[in-house]
Structure formats: structure tokens, C-alpha cells
């Protein structure tokens, strides 16, 4: 039943969590619609995992007793009616919660029944989850004997087997090889069409390739939230990397009209920045031709999320410093 306006599957308001004096999560509010993949981005210790633990009911927010905060999953309050709300949740914690002595099939069956699936529905769900996560070949194997990559996939399979409305994945691609990472990312993309997915990561490429929306966390606060496409534009830079086998001194390069900044990356490579409305490439190339600098490479600079991220977190740090 596709609605005209996608329903909100998860909404959290004013989540705060202290560990002793440390405010791990500070007044975080999140909203997630059906069919959306939200990336929670942040350095280690930014509070991503704590936030996800609160969203899944593994940890209670500090102000849970009072009415200051709320977590609703499909319109059911997680804090007031946890058992009902959790039926719509699938959660993969930081390290996959696997019973190492069980076989993959037994484990996934247990996970499905645990989330309240009827016995009759389990075989079909099991087959689908195994197929989606690439676990067809290892169904009868004992989980403890599987490689890390397969264990991670079993962890993802238990989070999606009961087809929950909200899927929470904490660093889902950690410890996988590049091929597996690609597979998992396309799986998350696919899940994002029908479910809501929220994932935490410190890998920027992951956000770029799978997420519709990004929230950046630092020191327990959400400091930036937008669509991931917007975020890339946000940090756009104009410039290029040029490789010269026989380079002139830096001052010569800096002297070319339109070039605002030159940075030497290696003996033969330079990072050249210029104004957005100027293009000194032509001038540079013809000069190189005349002087015999031997151009090897010319690559336009692409704003990566890395740049954006650093810029946003730096700006935030400068702001807090200025306040103090």
C-alpha cells in the first residue's frame, strides 16, 4: 500500500544520555520515513552507537521517566510500550549477536521466532533472508566455524529476517573485504526501498553510496543534517591535481594568473586551487609545453565527503572555542 506521503516509521525526540560526567548523547532528535536510508556519520566516540542503542531499547535515555524525550516506532512509544514497539525493529549491534554454537538455520529461525513470527511463516522468511545475505551455502554450518564476513552477514540476516519496518545497523560493513562491502551496500540500498534503514558509520564512501540522508554527529550532538547529495555540493572546491615530471619551482606555478593556491603533494605532483569562475588549466598547460615541464597527469579535484566532514566539524569546533 504505497502512500502519497511516506509514513514516518521512526521518530526520536530529545535523546540525552550521560555516562558519569560525559554527555555521550546530547539532545538528539531524529526522524525517519519509510523507504529512506539515513546515515549517522561521526568519528569514534561521537555517540553513534549510544544513539542506536537507545533507539533499539537496549539503553534507556536519561530523561526517560519524565516526558522530555520520546522514541516512537511506527507510532508506538518505545519507552511506554516496549514489547509492542520492538516487534517492528531489526537491530545489528556493533558486534553481531551470534550464538556461536548454533547452525545458521537454527540461529535465524530462533531470531525470527524471537521477534514474534509465526512458525508457519518462518521457512519462507528464512529462505529469503539467506538468499538476500548470500548465506545459501552455509545454512547447516555452525556459526562459530564461519569466517568473519559470513558471521557479519548472519548478523545482518537476523536483523532483517522478520521484515521489520525499521532496520538499525551499527557499522554493518566493518571487517568485510571490498567485494563483500559492495554486496552489503547494494543489499542495504535494496532494503531501503521497502523498509527504513538507519546505519552508523565512519566511512564516508558508505554514506555517499547508500544513504539518502546524512546526519553528522560530534561530541554527542547532531551538527549537520541534509541529503547526501546536498552535502557533497556543500563542500565543492575548484581545483585539480597536476603531475609534472620536470617541475618548476612552486613560485612559478603560483605566479600563473587565476591560481590561488598551490600545494606540493609529492616530488612531481601538485594540488592547484583556483577561483570558481576562473580556469587556469589552459594557461598552465601551454606554459608547460613551452618550458618542457612534461605533464603526466591532470585530474580535477572532487569534493569528497571527507572534505565536507572535516570542514563541518572544524567549523563546529571553532564555534565552540569562540563561545568559550
Amino acid at each position: 500500500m504505497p502512500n502519497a506521503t511516506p509514513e514516518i516509521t521512526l521518530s526520536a525526540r530529545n535523546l540525552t544520555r550521560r555516562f558519569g560526567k560525559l554527555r555521550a548523547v546530547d539532545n538528539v532528535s531524529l526522524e525517519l520515513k519509510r523507504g529512506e536510508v539515513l546515515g549517522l556519520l561521526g568519528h569514534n566516540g561521537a555517540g553513534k552507537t549510544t544513539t542506536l542503542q537507545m533507539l533499539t531499547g537496549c539503553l534507556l535515555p536519561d530523561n526517560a521517566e519524565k516526558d522530555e524525550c520520546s522514541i516512537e516506532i511506527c507510532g508506538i512509544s518505545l519507552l511506554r510500550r516496549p514489547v509492542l514497539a520492538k516487534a517492528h525493529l531489526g537491530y545489528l549491534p556493533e558486534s553481531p549477536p551470534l550464538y556461536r554454537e548454533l547452525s545458521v538455520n537454527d540461529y535465524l529461525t530462533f531470531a525470527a521466532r524471537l521477534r514474534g513470527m509465526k512458525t508457519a511463516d518462518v521457512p519462507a522468511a528464512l529462505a529469503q533472508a539467506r538468499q538476500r545475505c548470500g548465506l545459501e551455502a552455509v545454512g547447516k554450518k555452525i556459526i562459530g566455524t564461519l569466517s568473519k564476513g559470513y558471521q557479519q552477514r548472519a548478523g545482518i540476516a537476523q536483523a532483517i529476517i522478520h521484515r521489520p519496518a525499521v532496520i538499525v545497523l551499527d557499522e554493518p560493513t566493518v571487517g568485510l573485504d571490498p567485494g563483500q562491502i559492495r554486496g552489503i551496500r547494494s543489499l542495504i540500498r535494496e532494503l531501503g526501498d521497502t523498509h527504513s534503514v538507519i546505519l552508523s558509520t565512519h566511512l564516508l564512501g558508505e554514506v555517499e553510496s547508500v544513504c539518502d540522508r546524512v546526519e553528522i554527529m560530534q561530541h554527542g550532538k547532531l551538527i549537520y543534517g541534509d541529503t547526501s547529495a546536498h552535502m557533497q555540493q556543500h563542500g565543492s572546491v575548484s581545483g585539480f591535481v597536476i603531475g609534472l615530471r620536470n617541475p618548476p619551482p612552486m613560485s612559478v606555478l603560483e605566479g600563473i594568473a587565476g591560481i590561488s593556491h598551490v600545494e606540493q603533494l609529492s616530488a612531481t605532483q601538485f594540488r592547484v586551487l583556483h577561483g570558481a569562475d576562473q580556469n587556469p588549466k589552459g594557461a598552465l598547460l601551454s606554459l608547460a609545453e613551452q618550458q618542457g615541464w612534461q605533464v603526466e597527469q591532470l585530474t580535477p579535484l572532487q569534493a569528497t565527503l571527507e572534505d565536507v566532514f572535516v570542514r563541518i566539524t572544524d567549523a563546529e569546533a571553532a564555534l565552540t572555542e569562540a563561545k568559550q
Partner: protein
Amino acid sequence: MIRLLAMRELRSLFAMPSTWFILAVLQFIFAWFFLARLEAFLEIQPQLAQLANPPGVTNTVAAPMFNTVALLMMMLVPLFTMRLIAEERRNQTLALLLSAPLSDLHIVLGKFLGLLVFLAVLMSGVPLMLYTLSFGTNLDNGLLLSNILGLLLLTASYIALGLYISALTAQPIIAAVGALAVLLGLWLADIGAAAEDSPWHSVSPLHHFQNFNDGLLDSGDAAFFVLFTTVFLLLAVRRLHNNRLYG
């Protein structure tokens, strides 16, 4: 839901080779003890026959055997309870249960019943061996049943205590040592208290088992076991809830 958790507990237990090993070794010990008691009984039987009101085979073989099993359980139960929650915490599987649509009471009861069923299976060898005697003689069924009931209640109270201690830590070994220390402490306090009416007697589960062992069904003793078990199960539920509060 409770049954599902209990079944998972059993499945994990039987997936480990060490479980089968312990099962086998214990049956051997039970059988050895049973035969030793039986032999002793047969030796002194002629002398017993001269007494006016001689104790029967149930009194001389079954009761001491149940008493020994009760003592053995004190050492054994911590070994099984240590894994219940501490290991889930260490392997980070607790998050699966905490994020699943169950209450903390479900989790605790599921684990409690799973282990109780397992230990009941483990101990079932004892009455089975004793009932083989009924081929040759008449057994005192009342005494046997009161012993079986007492042993089950005693084991349940041990499991509840071990479960609670397991919920306190992330290290199974610490949970085992802790539970063993408490059970041994209660037992030593019981046998160390000289006075007949010392309050130490009333807090020791093994002391309350004595009446069952003698074939005396005392509702006070039964109530003690039920209370003891309930209190520690509720404490474990509370500890799991605190897990969400304090991380």
C-alpha cells in the same frame, strides 16, 4: 516466548560436547554411589532384620543417595548457571534479547526453565536407578516422591541464585565462583551453627531440604524454596532492567 528461550538454552547446552561429557560422568558417579550403598545395605541386612522396626531399603539406600545428589548439585549448578547471562553479555548476544519484543521477565524465566529442565534430565538417572529395586522389593513411594520434589525445589533455588549472580557480571568464571561461594557459605553457616534454633539454619536451602529427605512434607520448607527462587529471579529481572539504565 518463554518456551522459545528455554529451548534455545537447551539447544546451546546440547550443542556443546562438554555437556554430554558431564552428563556421562555424573551418571557414572550416581551409579557407583548407588551400588556402593546397595552393597552396604545387603551386608548389614541380617543385623537389621533382628531389630523390632528395621529401616527399609528406601531409607538406607535412597535417602542418603538423594542427600549426596543435593550436595553435588551445590557444586554443579554454578557451573551451569555461570553462562546464562554473563556469557550473553560477553559475547554481546544480550543486545539481541534486549532489542527483541520480550520483557526482562521473559528472558529470565526462559533461561531459568531451560536450565531447570536440563538439570531435571540430568538428575532423572537417580530415581530411575532406585526404581530398579522395585523388581526385588517394595519401595516407599512416599519417601521417594518427597525426595524428588525436594531435590527439584532445591535445584530451582540454586539456579535462581546462580542466574542472579550471572546477571551481575560479564565474566562467566566470576559468576561461577560467586555462586559457588554463596552456596558454600550458606551451607557452612548451616552446619557450623551449633544451636538447634540458630537463624543460620533457616537461610540455608540445604537445611530446608533435610525434611524432604526424611520424607516430611513441610509447607514451610516448600514456601522457603518458592520464596528464595522468586526473590532471586526478581533480582535478576531488576538487574537486567538496570542494564538498560546504566549501560
